[in-house]
């Protein structure tokens, strides 16, 4: 067993999930079974292999440049109200579960 009850609780906390006791038991079983399966990746020596984060690393990139300069093809100058105007206030609030006229309302953040 790689993952313990304590790990499940810790990861659920990181993921902002509560999970019922029943869900935690199932999660413990499933995560262990999946992680056992993915362990086969350790059969491969990847010590000299570069990680691949994005397919778009593979085209348009200027290999002679460093850092974000390499992705110059995908960038543009900032334009005020550029590609699209910001959503009007009332449209941005339209899907909110608990808006007032101006803001998204949430439960009290600071305890006192």
């Amino acid at each position: 067993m790689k993952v313990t009850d304590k790990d499940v609780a810790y990861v659920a906390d990181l993921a902002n999930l509560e999970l019922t006791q029943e869900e935690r038991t199932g999660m413990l079983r499933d995560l262990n079974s999946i992680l056992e399966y993915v362990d086969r990746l350790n059969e491969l020596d990847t010590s000299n292999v570069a990680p691949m984060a994005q397919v778009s690393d593979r085209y348009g990139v200027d290999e002679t440049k460093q850092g974000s300069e390499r992705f110059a093809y995908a960038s543009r100058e900032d334009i005020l109200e550029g590609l699209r105007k910001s959503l009007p206030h009332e449209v941005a609030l339209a899907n909110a579960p608990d808006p007032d006229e101006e803001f998204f309302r949430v439960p009290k953040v600071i305890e006192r």
Partner: protein
Amino acid sequence: MDLKSLTIDGARSAVQDRKTTALELAEAHYAHIQKEDGQIGAFLTLSKERALEQADRIDRMAAEGKTLPPLGGVPVGIKDVMSTRGLRTTAGSKILEKYIPPYDCTAVARMEAAGAMVLGKMNCDEFAMGSSNENSAYHPVRNPRDLGRVPGGSSGGSAAAVAADMAVVALGSDTGGSIRQPASFCGVVGLMPTYGRVSRYGLIAFASSLDHIGPLAKTVKDAAVVLRTIAGRDPMDATSADLPVPDYVAELDKPVRGMKLGVAKEYFGEGLDDEVRQAVERAIDKLQGLGCEIVPVSLPHTPYAIPTYYLIATAEASANLARYDGVRYGHRARGVKTLSEMYRRSRDEGFGAEVKRRIMLGTYALSAGYYDAYYLKAQKVRTLLTRDFDEAFRKVDAIVTPTSPTAAFRLGEKSNDPLAMYLADIYTVTADLAGIPGISVPCGETKEKLPIGLQILGKHFDEAGILRVAHAYEQAS
């Protein structure tokens, strides 16, 4: 109006030549949906008002004798992971049950600008996470060819609707096989373009480095028409490629004689159903008969594709789905006292079991102490998998494989075993990881009359090549 086998050209030219109207076409589809979809469950939301407005626009053009745009009067379905302005978009999740997007997905906007009538939003696995459509928070989709079986997933609603003639074509999304596998299960054509070929703007994110939008259609030609419509640079998606879009339709009839097609033994190993193997081998023979040269290739890292995929996809998903917090949109739990409790309970109530499982796995793979062992390791193996294809494509123009190891399985057959379900994507996840295009085209049936799919994988941005092979095979079979 006979909807069976109605294609884009069939629909458009009938409207253009005033043999029917776009309005009649839309109404005929809605009547058919009314009759059939109760037992199939392909639609989550119908958008009749929107479709009829478009029908009116198209009918006025036809009446004035104007040439209709390429999808003029064509009834389409849109997978419910693509945002539609003013039209409910749920991603198959309870957490977005009442969500009305304030903007349109670029691919949808391009379809409508080309004259398509959006009939409604198609059922799918929650946040596109699944291979059977049983993870929809609303209801499963049933395979029109056998109602006891799944349509595949996650674009199960899109595939089933096209298979059952409830839409002429549909848009789906593919992160690990979610267009090609349901296309295979339902007996239709499904195309996943190269990563970056089609803008992802407005697609509800699952795994951003793997998500693709593409068509499900009755014919290869229809898939080509849709791709031509939706492909091309979009300034709203920085990963969309700034490359010219070929006329995929014009390219279809170029000869396939002399093309080199790779066959990799790794796609014909343990777990492949015998009937599927035989059908795919017959299809390869047929392609050889059409003048293609069959060349053995090796993709040695294939057995590592599923573990690589499930680490990368879940890691990206755990980050993407962090936005569902009950603040700006989506479900919020009632009666909560603190902000933290609101986040947790909203997500607990809003997400289904598979989504939670993937968020947990992805969060674990990214967490301190495990990042190098899981996420980084998977990214490195992704490089190896991609190199396999680079190697193979030095020798061949395309690679032919089965789309899925089996035909459609029964509802409930794999729903209690996540790992068994993940293995349904064993032949499709590799293309998502490498970012190459792939198409599934029907290649026969099992004894139980279940469709089988032939997958054709191509080089980056060579959709024209795989469409041509698929078209030649389709015309010959």
